[in-house]
Each structure stands twice: as C-alpha cells, then as structure tokens.
C-alpha cells in the first residue's frame, strides 16, 4: 500500500472511532439542557390560550370551520370532490357548454387529478370582510388584477419645463395659467385620440377611451392655484400634511404631466405602446394649445417628450426575455413601492417613534399598511410576472401570491411583533448592523415558524413551501426595513430568513429550492460587480437572478416599503411616481389593493378598457362608465 492509502485508511478508522466516542458523549443531553427544553415546552403549553386570542386563530376558524390548532382534518376525502366549490361547479357547467357549442372538448374535470379531495377552502381577502374562492384570484378571472397591470402599464409621466422653455426662448410665447389650462383641456381630448390638427383623421369612440386623461403634478401651490381643479393631483388633500409637504418640496416648481393611456391600447399592444401614445398625443395637444406649426422647434419638443424628460414605469428588458418599456418585468422595485399608497394618511415619522407614540394599536396600524401594500407586489411578482409572463399562465404561482392576500398571516405576525416592539424598543432606532439586528430577526422568524407549526390550518392554507417562503421573506424584510430604515438591511434579513432560518428549521424552503435568490442575494447584497449588488430600490424583475424564481418580489417590496416606513420618508424612489399613483381617478385602488382584488372576486369591480361601446347589444350606462370617485377611503 502506498503511504497515501495508509494515511487514508488510518484517517477513516480514526474518524469512526472518534465518531463513536462523540456519539456516546452526545447521546445524553445534560440534565440542564433537558430541563431547559422541558421548561420551554411547558411554557409553550401555557400559552395555548394566548394563541387562541390571536387574530389568526379567528381567521382560521372562519376559513376552515374547524379547530385551527388541530392537525387532523376528519372530513378529508369526504367533501364531494370539486362539487364542494361553487366556482368549480360553474366551470364544469361552462366547460360542458363550451364543448357542445364549439365541438371541441373544453374544461373537463374527468381528466388529470381528482380535484377536491381536500377542502377547497374559502378565501377571506385581507381584513376587508370579503370572501372569495381561490379561483377568483386567478388573474384571468380577476378584473382588478388585470387593471393593476393595466394601470401601471398605461402610465407615462412627462416633464413640461423643457417644453415651456422652448416656447419662451425659441418661439417667444408665454406660458400662463390660461395657456396651461387650455393645454390640459386639449390634452384630455387628444389622450382619447381626438384630432386637433387635421381634418380626415380617424377618431375613437370616447366611451372606449373614457380612462384616458392627464393630470399635472407639481410641488408649487402657485401653479396649482392657477389650474382648474380637475387638471392636477391634489397632493394636500391626498396625503398627510407632513407627507404632502415633503413631496411638494421634493418636486419643487417643476411641472410634470402624468398621462394615462387608454387601457384598451395597452391591452391591444403592450406597455411600450404607452410611451408612444402619450408622447404623440401630448405633442399634439401642445402644438394645438400653443399654435405651433410643423416647424423645426417641434422636433425638439418631440425629443423632450419622447426621450429627454419622460419617465416610463419600466425599462426595456434583456433580449432573452425581451419586452418593451412599461411592462412589469422592467419596473424598478423602488417604483413598485411608490405605486403603493397605503401609508398616505399616516404621519411621516419613523416606525419606532410612531409605535412609541401610538403604542400597540398604532404599531399594528402601520404594520397593516405594510401588509396591504406588499400584497400588490406579491401579485405583480408571482401572479403576473412569474406565473403569467414567464411561465405562461400556470395556476400555482397565483396561489403563492394569494398567501399575501388571504389568511392574515402577515398582519398577525407583524402585529404581534409590533406589540412587542412598542413595549421594548422605547422609540429608539436600531443600528443598521447585522450583529444587532440578527437577534430581532431570529425572534420574528422563529415566531413565524412556530405559528405555522401551531396552526396546521394556516400551514394548509399556505400549502406550498413557496407560500411560506413568501411570507417568511416578507415578514423578515419588512421588519428589517422598518426597524432600520434601510432597504439593504431589510433584504439581508429576508435572505437570511429563507436561506438559513427557514431552511434549517424545517429542512425545506419552497418550490424547487425557493432559496435560489436568497443564497445569491447574500453575496450580491453589497457586491460591486456589474451584475450584482445595488440598492434594493434599483433591483427589479429584469435583474437576472430575480427574473426566474417566485416569491421574492414581495420580499424586496417589503424591504423597500418597510424601509420607507422605518425611516419616515414620503416616498421610496421617486416622489413624482408616488404622487402619480395617488390619482383617485385610477380604477385600481392602489391604496387598498386587496379590497379591489376582493371586490373583483365578487364581480363587483368595474374595470376600464371594456369594448362594450362597439359590441352588439351595447349597454353602456350599465357598465360603470361613470365611476364614482371615492375620495374618503376607509382603510
């Protein structure tokens, strides 16, 4: 034998011997440790009654109509299969009718797996008292989810300052409140493809484009005073005074126009259409209002509106998943957090100070806003991006998104944490330092883990690892962000929670190792390499490693939005985008996303972009054309 082999053999033997010794040593726990474990268990048992007092207990009870802490479902397999669900029964009936009419089979429950062996549970949406079925939250069945996508895709923001300078310097025209109002009035006409410059242009039925309009965003009270009230976004009315002041200061005297391209246009084409439509119609309105000709200066105008001073909601994407601008894959995460409007009426002070002032109730209120907001990011990421754009419309990632809609796990856990935080943090901010934060993150993560363990009904509701991963990341990132005001710290906490804490506790994460993004996320967190690192606000679904696995858009949104609440600022990435989505004319409710989605599940949501005006048997006035604008939202 060579010396190497001898060495190896010796090594193996030694190793075996050592292990045996270690085994004997390790197999008996010290009496102290046994006591400790027993004590913990005893303590846990004592708190069963407290568990019953939790919101989640009540929610689970309502959903399952069974004891939420009990891990056996005695009625399993005995619920009549798919027939237990009204929606499934409707689908079967509809599938049959479709098949008969078209002569090709359609939806058919006789193929594939037998659905409904388990309970097909109802889905309460958020805290809005709305109960829908799981299928109602599929993006194809839910008009609000479609409108969420559309309202983002059809938004383009253009700055008018350069155009105004061009008018003044090169054309010698004045910009006055009167001209600005005329321009805005004309713009409402051109946004719906109304002609202004030429005879013989094809025009569009206004009912089809009733959702096309434009509004001014400015921080200047003077400018706003000169405008007709319907032509600008009323920051002072829509935001808490402190937030309004901060936003107005950040926007300053600049004048921006937020343009809403008709839903039908982006649905017929894609998000890229929005920029083109907006630029063309805006330029036409400008030419008309200021009486410009096809002169040289208008090419500068076109350049300013199409390129130099325009904000698209999303960038172009890499060629392997190429899409034009204003598609959800290209939205920076910071914008997604700015779309969320749930915090608008909250005072603009850091989370830890707020909970010190407001106590338990206030703490829960702010956490509730976080949970409401990030549900939108969960839909964008899981349902629309991964489930639809990337995977071609599978139902699974829809259900991952709904873990942020239903069950109230986020609120419950975050609320419990907030109660503790209001007691113990005493209004002091936490340093942005992992060695300090990790203790709190471990606390909250193990709390989430134990909640799933104690509530088998919650584990059943969030039935896949991806659902739980999604909650875990949301909670840890949100808490990390809220405590420190740092999105990077939030993301660190979220990555840690999934890649380590959840994984080692249960030896599983999500859908095919959902921790892909969390393993990569940690080394990437502060890397200076081109494809790694960067502030979470500037990530997004086009960032290569975020593009292909689910359950993490909500994590990043939670880090970003949580950090905003944590530091007490009025926006995440762009004050202009924040204000643009406060527009009460938007059909989707960016302040109460779950409410809108829930109502759509009940078929009570009136979307934009319907074609009724050009279809047979048009019944326009019954289709919610004149939508009531609800200025005082209860939340």
């Amino acid at each position: 034998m060579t010396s190497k082999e001898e060495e190896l053999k010796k090594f193996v033997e030694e190793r075996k011997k050592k292990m045996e010794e270690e085994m004997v040593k390790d197999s008996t726990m010290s009496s102290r440790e046994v006591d400790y474990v027993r004590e913990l268990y005893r303590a846990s048992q004592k708190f069963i009654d407290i568990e019953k007092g939790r919101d989640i207990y009540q929610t689970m009870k309502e959903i399952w109509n069974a004891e939420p802490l009990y891990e056996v479902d005695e009625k399993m397999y005995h619920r009549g299969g798919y027939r237990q669900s009204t929606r499934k029964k409707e689908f079967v009936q509809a599938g049959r009718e479709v098949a008969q009419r078209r002569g090709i089979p359609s939806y058919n429950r006789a193929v594939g797996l037998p659905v409904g062996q388990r309970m097909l549970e109802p889905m309460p949406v958020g805290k809005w008292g709305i109960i829908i079925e799981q299928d109602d939250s599929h993006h194809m069945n839910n008009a609000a989810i479609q409108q969420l996508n559309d309202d983002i895709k059809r938004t383009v923001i253009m700055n008018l300052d350069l155009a105004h300078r061009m008018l003044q310097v090169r054309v010698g025209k004045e910009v006055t409140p009167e001209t600005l109002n005329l321009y805005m009035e004309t713009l409402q006409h051109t946004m719906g493809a109304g002609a202004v410059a030429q005879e013989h242009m094809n025009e569009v039925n206004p009912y089809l484009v009733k959702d096309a309009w434009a509004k001014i965003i400015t921080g200047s009270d003077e400018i706003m005073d000169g405008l007709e009230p319907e032509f600008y976004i009323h920051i002072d009315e829509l935001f808490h005074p402190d937030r309004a002041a901060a936003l107005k200061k950040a926007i300053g005297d600049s004048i921006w126009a937020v343009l809403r391209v008709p839903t039908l246009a982006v649905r017929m084409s894609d998000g890229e259409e929005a920029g083109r439509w907006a630029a063309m119609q805006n330029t036409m309105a400008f030419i008309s209002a200021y009486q410009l000709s096809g002169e040289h200066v208008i090419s500068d105008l076109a350049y300013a509106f199409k390129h130099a001073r325009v904000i698209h909601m999303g960038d172009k994407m890499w060629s392997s998943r190429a899409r034009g601008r204003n598609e959800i894959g290209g939205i920076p995460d910071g914008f997604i957090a700015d779309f969320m409007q749930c915090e608008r009426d909250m005072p603009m002070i850091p989370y830890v100070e707020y909970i010190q002032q407001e106590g338990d109730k206030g703490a829960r209120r702010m956490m509730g806003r976080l949970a409401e907001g990030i549900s939108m990011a969960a839909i964008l990421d899981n349902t629309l991006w991964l489930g639809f754009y990337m995977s071609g419309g599978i139902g699974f990632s829809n259900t991952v998104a709904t873990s942020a809609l239903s069950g109230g796990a986020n609120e419950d856990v975050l609320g419990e944490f907030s109660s503790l935080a209001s007691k113990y943090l005493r209004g002091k901010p936490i340093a942005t330092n992992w060695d300090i934060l990790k203790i709190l993150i471990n606390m909250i993560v193990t709390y989430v883990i134990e909640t799933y363990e104690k509530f088998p009904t919650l584990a059943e509701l969030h039935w896949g690892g991806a659902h739980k991963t999604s909650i875990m990341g949301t909670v840890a990132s949100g808490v990390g962000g809220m405590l420190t005001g740092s999105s990077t710290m939030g993301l660190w906490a979220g990555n840690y929670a999934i890649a380590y804490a959840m994984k080692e506790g249960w030896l599983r994460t999500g859908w095919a190792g959902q921790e892909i993004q969390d393993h990569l996320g940690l080394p990437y967190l502060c890397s200076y390499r081109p494809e790694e690192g960067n502030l979470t606000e500037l990530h997004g679904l086009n960032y290569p490693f975020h593009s292909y696995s689910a359950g993490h858009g909500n994590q990043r949104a939670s880090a970003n939005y949580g950090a905003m609440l944590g530091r007490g600022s009025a926006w995440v990435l762009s004050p202009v985008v924040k204000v643009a989505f406060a527009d009460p004319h938007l059909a989707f409710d960016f302040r109460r996303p779950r409410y809108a989605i829930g109502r759509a599940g009940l078929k009570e949501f009136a979307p934009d972009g319907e074609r009724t005006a050009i279809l047979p048997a048009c019944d326009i006035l019954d289709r919610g054309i004149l939508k009531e604008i609800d200025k005082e939202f209860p939340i």
Partner: protein
Amino acid sequence: MKYKDKIDIYNDLSKCVAKDVPIEALSPVYNPYMGKILDLFKRTAFINLPKLQNCIKEGKAGWETSTGQDECKMPWYGKDLPIMDHAEEIANGIRDRIKVGGEDGEDIVKLIEDTIVVKMPKKVMEIAASRDPVYTWVMVSLAQTVAEVFGIDPIKDLNTTNMIKAVIFGRYPQSTTFSPGAPVSSFLKPSNTIDGLGCGYSGITVNHIVALANKRTMDGLALASILEQAAQWEMGNSIGWYERYNLLGYAYEGYNANNMTLDLVKENRSGTVADIVYSTIKRALDDGVIKVKSKAASGYRFYATNDFPMYNAYELSGTTAGVILNSGAMRAGQAASAAIAYTHDLFLYETGGLPDADTGRMQGAGIGFAFYTHSIYGGAGPGAYTFDHVILRGSGFIQPLIVAGMCLDSGTQLFSPEMTSGAFFKIRETFPIFQDVLQKVGESAEEIKNDLKG
C-alpha cells in the same frame, strides 16, 4: 508578482506539468495558450457548404427550430447550385474579399473537407468595436462569392439572388439574430444577442465544449474554465478585490492545481459526495488554510480562515471532485446538478458558517440549475445550456462543472454532444490546439513563469 501564491499544475494522469507557477500565469491576460484559444474563439467562422447547397436547392431559409428546421419552405425559389463542386473557388473568393494587406502569415481561409474555416484577419478585428466581423464579413463575402461563382444577379436570376441572402442570413434583420444551425456559424453568439456586459465568451453551449474536449473530463473542465474565466475578466468580475479569488478559484477548479481535485477523486473513488467534502475540509485544515476557531458546548467546532480566497479554491476543488464522482459513478451528465446544488450545505454546516463555494453563489445558481434541468419551466438537459444562461450566470464557477458532468455521460442524454455538437468533434481534429488543453495550460504557465513581473 502581485500575489505570492504559487501552484503546481497536474495533468489528468496526475503528472506535474508546471511547477511553482505564480497564479498570474493562469490569468487570461498572461497565459499565452489561453490567449490563443480566446483569439481562435473570437476570430473563427465556419461555413457549412453542404448545408448551404441543400438549403439553396430546397428553398429553405428563415427557420426558427434548432432541430428539424423544417417549418419554412419556399421550394419555388430553390436552385440547384453545385456549391460543393466549387468549394475551392468559393474559399478563394472569400479570401480575396476579406484579406488585409500585410497579413501575419496565417492562412485566413482554409477548406477542410466540406467546411470553409475562416479566421478573420487580426487587423479587421482590431479596428472593430465588437467581434461582429466574424459574422458580417464572412456572410457578406460568402454571398458575393457564391453569386459571382455562379453568375447570379438580379437580371439573370432575381429569385436566386435573394435566396442566397436568405439562406446565409436567415431572417436577419427582421429577427435580431440568425437561424440556429445556419450555414455560417462561429464559436460565440452574435454580440447583439448577449444579455449583459462582457459576457461574450460565456455565450457558448456546454455540449460544444464537451465535443471540443472529445469528452475528456479534465480537458473539458480546463477549456470551459478558460472561456468562463475570460468572460469573468471581461465583465470586471475579477478586478482588484476579486482577482486573486478568481485566479485561485479557476486554478483549483479548472486546472487541477496541486492535483487536489484528482487526489480527492482518487481518495474517494468508491465513496460519496459527502466523503469528498470531509476530505476537502481535512485537507484545508492540514494545509493551514482554515483552523479551529472555537468549540461549542456540543463539541461542534467553528472554523475560521485568514485566507478565504484560498479556502474558496479548496471548496471549488472539492465541488469539482464531487461532480466528477457523482456523474462518474452514475455516468450521467444529469447528476452534476445535484452535486453542484446540494454539496454546499455540507461545507457550510461542517465549518460553522464559513461561506460555501463562491460565497453562496454556486449554491444559488446550482439550485436553480437543478430545478430547471428537471422541470417544465424552461431549461433543457445540461448539455444544451449556454454558459451565460440566466440560470447559470449567477456564478462564474458553475459552467465548467456542468461540462465535466457531460464529459462523463455515457450516452443517457437526448440532447447529447453527438447530436447537438457533432461539428465540434470535427473542429477538434482540425485544430490541434483543442487537444490536451489542461496539459497545454500548464505548459504555457511554466513557459512564462519567470517572465512575469509584478
């Protein structure tokens, strides 16, 4: 030299081919052999004459499918041009068109059996901002030559004039790129189809490398490492703080530094992947790369290191050995992903939290790779992946391991190297540079080791 680290390179027979070479000698910037390989990859185009002839004859152009290629047919435009009979003439025509005065003695156009191999003149490539002349110059000159040789012009034969263009260019520029398997090809993708800055050398298919290495595992590893390493350099991923980390990483993963990878494989040739992890850590401990930091109540030892780049290189070597062992035992390329994805937890929980290979990037990308090579959500068998695939680009150390796995496959894959990359087996025979890659990397490092100055 900037770094003190010196290593020995061993070939796949565990014979030392370079002794005490500074790690910089394994940088694509310095190693002359690597330079030659990269130059060849960048400048070479291939013209598949039988394909050109058949497609023009059948009126077949603009396909999208990578196999079959039968969905677009315009037989009414087909023309039977005896291209093969005029191969020499066509080669000469291309040479005349692309040659630049004062060549460096290289024969830029060679007819090898039924393939014309074009190596773009250095001068052309020097003045180009991109490496696109390898496509543009070759395609345009080919079209012109064919038209000239067969006397085709818009007056005499309008349709064939455009059929020639259609076969060579496919749908370009209606499409942003060329048809897969088009008659003109190069090693690397056209630059406009690359996602991300500096990834050009990463745009190659796993099976192509396997074929170029003729399924010789350590050569496959080395060749893949040269390319991915070059991409990492081009991306800026190896600058400053990351330079030594990358040099050591590729030395141990790709070039069998100190014979460590093969030692680990040999020690555990009948063992399991976990055995390799423990052998690797033992070796790191023996070599003083890591040491015990503290002992916990259970007796669990926390390890620490003052030289993480070196420990990372050890982990990469261990992971490589793990892949070789796993794919070698199963003799299947599909087994690489399990070793790539799930070995790192073993490293991490064995050492008390020292970062796993490539500080977790390998695990993240590996888990994605495991999923996407086993699911309906995209992907393919490992051989059909390109190095720059979004799943793989998370780590620059994952690609060589997939190549190693596929080298060890004994015929279990549908998309096998023989099916997807048959031409590359032939190219290897044509270019002796692709033979004994590992040996040549080492010899080249040995040659320059005394010339390197810091």
